[in-house]
């Protein structure tokens, strides 16, 4: 009987960790991609894609600002080959597939009880359910980095010999993650490495160091290539310097901390408002020198530490994160039921403390984005689960590690199962809600595109129109992430693209010297924004050009599902009075 089982093809193939994990990953992603509906988490991805796809204007730029230029160099010809297939998102899905596969492979390779494996698989898939339905380059990069780090750790455990396959795949994942968003690599390491220190016995230090040589070299090479590209592209280099300075204002607490300092650079309160609303196309007012002055003279950290901490904890107990906190609680419960709590206590504590310390620092020094908190929580949950599994595997009689036979252990075991089921139920419910939201958004976006096209066909807006928008104009991030459907009317969102060579190129193509002037001087340049923004722009014209303008509404963008930030968005023609 036993022999027949071992000879069985299913066992040979599908219970081999790599094939079993491949099967699980494939089924999971097919269900999540085809039964649920992914959408963009934020609008940055589409801005980056528009650079590399050359929209508007038709001149692609491989430097996509937030990701390494190598990614842009690969993507640019693909977008040139077929403009409507969204290659970057396909790349994200591929990378996510490999990340999930890597995690599941680690879990399937553990010499632990099936229950523990099932728990591990459920944790990974539950976490990925969030990443795959809310696509952003940040979280995809972070998940890839985390899985790469764990593959490298798995390769250097003392119970195994150094596995070259794990190192190669781990290196590839870390490299890809760092190319997509470099900052995600240190963030992943900050959550995982302290736990390594408290479970040193689990790892062969020599192997650990050896395993990191290749990733270090590749990541460094990628980083240096990016720097070299900037160095040899003076226009992009200058823009990058400007953008880095802007980030130090926009993404920190400097905007809140600004008071009289703005007067030293000639800004009015209205100029500050416009900057905060992603509209800073006037070179004199928003020059690099002015921004550098603000960075130098205004503190970037929060003056209200308690308030920042409270805001962070409020985010932590948001409905979207509760299920993942429950999974962490469930991990702790089954750690207790398996009698591992004593041994796992320090690594678990290190992970939780690093999570708290890291996020509290970010909340204090930067504006911490939701997606960063989500990733941190999910990284904490995954790290906790994997370290506990590794520690349980280290038991001398490892394969036989079971639930302790005491009453309390049984109670905590069943408790952990119940909490896990509850968490998975909540995640499934969230997936359904996200899907519904994404379907509504995608159909609404389609409608808006058609209506804008109809305005152009009917001659209500010019045939060679250029629509300019600060933040919250046309919601391109509502579009279906798998199909690139830019509006047929040329549309340029200001914001972080401002003053980039790409932005300058678009202005040149439309023969625009100054964007604010073009808005009222040129018949084919329009503004699309929330109605509340017009008051600030009107004041800008009065303050800096001494003219009055009126904003003639042409089209009101529907937002029948009341998605936040997009109420009262209108298309205007700015007319000088």
């Amino acid at each position, binding site marked *: *009987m036993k022999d*027949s*089982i071992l000879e*069985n*093809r*299913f*066992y040979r*193939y*599908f219970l081999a960790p790599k*094939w079993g994990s*491949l*099967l699980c990953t*494939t089924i999971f992603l*097919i*269900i999540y991609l*085809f*039964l649920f509906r992914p959408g963009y988490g934020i609008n940055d991805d589409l801005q980056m894609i528009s650079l590399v796809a050359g929209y508007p204007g038709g001149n692609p730029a491989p430097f996509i600002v937030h990701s390494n230029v190598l990614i842009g160099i690969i993507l640019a010809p693909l977008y040139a080959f*077929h403009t*409507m*297939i969204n290659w970057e998102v396909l790349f994200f899905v591929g990378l996510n597939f490999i990340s999930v596969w890597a995690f599941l492979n680690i879990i399937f390779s553990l010499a632990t009880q099936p229950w523990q494996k099932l728990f591990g698989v459920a944790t990974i898939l539950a976490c990925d359910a969030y990443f795959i339905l809310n696509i952003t380059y940040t979280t995809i990069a972070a998940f890839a980095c985390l899985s790469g780090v764990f593959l490298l750790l798995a390769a250097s455990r003392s119970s195994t010999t150094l596995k070259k396959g794990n190192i190669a795949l781990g290196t590839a994942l870390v490299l890809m993650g760092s190319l997509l968003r470099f900052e995600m690599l240190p963030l992943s390491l900050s959550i995982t490495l302290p736990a390594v220190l408290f479970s040193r016995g689990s790892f062969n230090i020599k192997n650990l160091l050896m395993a990191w040589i290749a990733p270090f070299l590749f990541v460094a090479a990628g980083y240096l290539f990016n720097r070299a590209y900037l160095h040899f592209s003076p226009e992009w280099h200058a823009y990058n310097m400007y953008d880095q300075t802007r980030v130090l204002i926009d993404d920190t607490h400097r905007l809140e901390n600004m008071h009289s300092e703005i007067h030293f650079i000639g800004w009015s309160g209205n100029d500050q408002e416009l900057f905060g609303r992603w509209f800073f196309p006037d070179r004199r007012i928003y020059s690099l020198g002015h921004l550098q002055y603000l960075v130098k003279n205004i503190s970037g950290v929060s003056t209200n530490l308690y308030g920042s901490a409270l805001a962070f904890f409020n985010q932590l107990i948001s409905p979207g994160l509760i299920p993942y906190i429950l999974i962490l609680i469930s991990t702790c419960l089954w750690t207790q039921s398996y009698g591992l709590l004593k041994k796992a206590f320090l690594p678990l504590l290190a992970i939780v403390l690093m999570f708290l310390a890291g996020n509290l620092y970010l909340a204090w020094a930067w504006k911490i984005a939701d997606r960063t908190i989500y990733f941190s929580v999910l990284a904490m949950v995954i790290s906790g689960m994997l370290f506990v599994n590794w520690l349980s595997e280290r038991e001398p009689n490892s394969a036989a590690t079971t639930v302790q036979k005491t009453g309390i252990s049984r109670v905590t075991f069943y408790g952990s199962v119940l909490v896990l089921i509850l968490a998975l139920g909540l995640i499934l419910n969230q997936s359904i809600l996200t899907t519904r939201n994404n379907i509504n958004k995608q159909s609404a976006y389609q409608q808006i595109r058609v209506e804008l096209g109809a305005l152009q*066909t009917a001659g209500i807006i010019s045939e060679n129109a250029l629509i300019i928008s600060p933040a919250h104009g046309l919601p391109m991030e509502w579009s279906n992430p*798998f*199909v690139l459907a830019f509006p047929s009317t040329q549309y340029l969102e200001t914001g972080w693209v401002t003053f980039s060579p790409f932005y300058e190129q678009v202005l040149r193509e439309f023969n625009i010297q100054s964007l604010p002037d073009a808005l009222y001087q040129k018949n084919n340049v329009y503004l699309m924004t929330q109605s509340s923004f017009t008051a600030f722009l009107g004041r800008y014209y009065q303050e800096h050009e001494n003219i009055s303008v009126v904003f003639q509404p042409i089209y009101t963008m529907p937002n029948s599902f009341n998605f936040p930030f997009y109420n009262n968005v209108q298309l205007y023609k700015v007319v000088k009075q």
Partner: protein
Amino acid sequence: MRKPSFYLILLIATAAIFYIIFILRTAFRIQGVLYFTLIDDAMVSMRYAQHVAHGFGAVWNIGEKPVEGFTNPGWMLLMAFFHLLAIPTSKISLAIMVVSEVVLLANAFVIYRLCDGFQPGSKYAPLLAATITAFYFPLVFWSLRGMEVGLLTLLIDVGVLIVIRHTGDVEKRSSILLGMVFFLALLVRIDSILQIFIICVYFFCRDKSNIRHLVLPLLVAVLTILAILWFQHAYFGDFLPNTYYQKVIGASTWERIKNGILVFYQYAARDILMLALFSLAGVILYKDLRSWEILLLAGLFLVQCMYSIWVGGDYAEVEVDAANRFITQGMPALIILFSLVADHMISDLISAQQPTAHSKPRVQAIISIGVALAALLVISGKPWIDWAIDNSPLLKADMRRVKLGLAIAEYTSPQAIIAVHAAGQIPYYSDRRTIDLLGLNDPVIAKGPVTGPFYPGHDKWNYDYSIMQLKPDLIADNWVKLGDFMKGKTEYQELDNGMYLRKDSTLVNVYGLVNDTR
């Protein structure tokens, strides 16, 4: 022949009831009369079929030079047969749907037998493949809404069945049968030459000695093609159907392929990806699946995908939200391939866990149907849910056009000439001489330049010719650029229902028409 299993009979009975529900849901009433209609494209063939049955020949307008505005002559002739029977116009589409239902059920049966043939003694694959095929949305939809997809799929599947059962000693009879199947498939749609070619290659490669059994079917296929081409040239004046020129001439090859890739990626990926990945994994993992038979299945599927990409996709992917007609025709091959792989995996899994479970047919059937439903949930779940909520895709437009066609018949004189963009229901039910503004039934437009962005069958028009030269009394429906063109055209006036009427026409009861169709 082996007796069909109880579970196959159960599947076919369930599918039959389901198809009846599908058909009945498409019924609607106009002035108290219960109507059934096919999809607009199929109604184009119905108009030709009507004219053939009434002795006017395969013409678009009675008395005019023949033009081949259809690509499915065999199917059109079948439709013509039903026009010979005393079936009222309101119910004749129902007869076609019933034929399609029988075809789909027969196809499920053939698929079952095919799996048995590919893997004799297989416990799960036959029922699994038959269930997925029977409820695969695009196949059910296109067939029951009146297109030839179901019949063509059945004929190809029968051809494959004959070939894989051909053992080399019998087999004069199977050569004749294969020849007949090839003849019918080519008659139904000449594009089936691609799949026939794959079948022939397999037949030859599997055993070189089969060449002598292949001579007759090949000869039949070649002669059929030559006969069809000769007939088309002699009767219609062109070697290929007018629809070919309308769709292919003018657009660049790259533009077509780009659109083909896009709609494949956008609408067929869900139908294909899971089945294809599992099949690929199976072929990698199981040595006994690396055979000529598997290549045959893969070839039958891939050739249809490539064809779809080559022609630039189809016209209704957006509405149907699934793989198009061309890919649908290749899907049973992929479904069989998936089922064979799944059979291997399930067998291995179960033999490792519970060796005795194999012997219980009920358990095998439950597992097969369970896996089939799970696969269907992924590949066809969404369109079926949409169908449950909104009924068949495009049906609302079809119903509106039937009503419009009947109103035109009532409120215009038989001498009136109408112009349409949707050339199915309106001309069929109005029974008026019709100008096809998109050129599927008009060689002047079909062979003319492309006017709009690439959209198979919907990107050519020449209003100066169709409207200003041919001067229809009534333009019965609207299209993207018509409004722009009609601006300032003093010969025509726009009616309250959106139609355009030639001002000097006395053949239209404007008041009745507008009131009835507003």
